[in-house]
């Protein structure tokens, strides 16, 4: 089996849209240019990210934003089931987004293309948001369409041999309401329903089943996923302004889908500005999910179920994150055409632990672990981000 990296890249098309798809209220944000670097280290992987973003208004009603993002992956992830080989791969993502305001309505249209050797995704997004009731309420509606081509690299990282296996597409509908509650408190609720169809599994991951005749004690097989998937997520959030000039925020999201996964996400954030120069932020995140109905770490025999998966994303797991961020305005009052310039450093630490996904890399029958008794997998990841933002 080839080492997997795609699972890290595939949902990015949806995630990336957040850069471009969120409509604001009444006034377009300032023009800006950002240069961004990130480094994710964890679970045997090292992923470096680089990005550039430029946003410009062409009138008080019309703005365009363009973003380029590149991910470079190296490492060996936990689901390399044969001898570990170095993964080296690259994902390039380009997106363009247009905002238009007319009276109290803001429209957004965006297009994103994400390309890597074995996966291509094209996503279009449209949303509108409307200010109502004295601009205290903002109602938003959004629609996203994503078409993906799924392939598998049957060669090596350095001499690839791509086989295109199929395609998938995804549609999502979002509805949200944001409400100013008092002069110190804002709140929001968002509902998103996503439907996918087509080839939805990661070809680099395999299931395993008990096979007493095999030297490992288990055999490997292909994952078989349902051809459709529908999910619903609801998130509520609040943000409160503290009298000494700081902000505290909280959010909770409930997720449910047709594959039997139910998840809860809770976040807490605190923002502390210092004069006009610094903004310090801390955040905590707690996540927990149960496993998909067709997931198992070890199936009793080959073909025991119609649908079978051993993808760690569908396992029962919990993760905890702590993050710290500091923004320094090195140009607090601007310089020439720039209104403001800031530099930001951000460090996050995530602890992942799985309740029914086992680490089978170094633990096998040879060192006394019969299949299904290997230690449960857990790992830590550290994420560094540094970026420069110029506002003009």
């Amino acid at each position, binding site marked *: 089996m080839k080492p997997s990296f795609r699972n890290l890249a595939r*949902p990015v098309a*949806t*995630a*990336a849209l*957040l*850069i*471009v798809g*969120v409509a604001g209220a*009444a*006034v377009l944000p300032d023009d800006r240019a950002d240069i*961004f670097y*990130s480094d994710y280290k964890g679970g045997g992987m090292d992923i470096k990210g680089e*990005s550039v*973003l430029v946003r410009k208004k062409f009138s008080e009603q019309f703005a365009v934003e363009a973003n380029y993002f590149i991910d470079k992956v190296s490492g060996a992830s936990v689901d390399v089931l044969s001898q570990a080989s170095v993964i080296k791969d690259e994902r390039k993502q380009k997106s363009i987004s247009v905002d238009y305001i007319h009276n109290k309505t803001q429209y957004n249209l965006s297009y994103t293309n994400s390309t890597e050797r074995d996966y291509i995704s094209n996503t279009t997004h449209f949303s509108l*948001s*409307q200010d*109502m*009731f*004295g*601009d*205290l*309420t*903002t*109602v*938003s*509606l959004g*629609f996203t369409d994503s078409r993906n081509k799924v392939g598998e690299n049957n060669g090596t990282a350095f001499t690839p041999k791509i086989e295109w296996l199929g395609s998938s597409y995804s549609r*999502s509908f*979002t509805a*949200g309401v*944001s*409400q*100013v509650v008092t*002069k110190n408190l*804002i709140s*929001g609720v*968002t509902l*998103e*329903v*996503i439907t996918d169809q087509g080839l939805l599994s990661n070809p680099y991951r395999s299931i395993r089943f008990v096979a007493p005749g095999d030297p490992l004690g288990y055999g490997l097989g292909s994952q078989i996923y349902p051809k459709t998937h529908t999910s619903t*997520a609801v*998130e509520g*959030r609040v943000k409160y*302004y503290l009298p000494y000039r700081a*902000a505290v925020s909280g959010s909770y*999201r409930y*997720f449910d*889908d047709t*594959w039997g*996964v139910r998840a809860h996400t809770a976040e807490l954030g605190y*923002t502390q500005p210092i004069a006009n120069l610094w903004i310090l932020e801390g955040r905590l995140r707690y*996540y927990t*999910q149960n496993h998909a109905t067709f997931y198992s770490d070890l199936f009793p025999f080959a073909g025991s179920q119609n649908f079978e998966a051993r993808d*760690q*994303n569908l396992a029962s797991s919990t*993760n905890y994150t702590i993050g710290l961020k500091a923004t320094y305005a090195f140009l607090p009052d601007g310089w020439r055409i720039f209104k403001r310039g800031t530099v*930001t450093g*951000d460090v996050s630490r995530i602890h992942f632990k799985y309740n029914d996904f086992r680490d089978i890399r170094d633990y096998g029958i040879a060192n006394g672990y019969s299949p299904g008794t290997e230690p449960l997998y857990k790992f830590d990841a550290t994420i560094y981000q540094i*970026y420069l*933002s110029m506002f003009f």
Partner: protein
Amino acid sequence: MGKLLRVVVMGLGMLQGACSIQPWVKPYERDRLADPIMSWDRDAISGAYLDHIYDSREGSRGATGTAGGGCGCN
């Protein structure tokens, strides 16, 4: 779907016209809400990047964007 969207938007528009709920937070009281520390997501690249990290390692997705708040000018 397009028709449904149009109906919903029209409905919301009519609702806004018909209901005259007086804003209880006056526009001249919105200075704190216009403060950048009160925005939902100040740094778009970073926000999207972290969402992407979670989306690609977790079995859930969606509902993480927000619009609204701010000074409400215009």
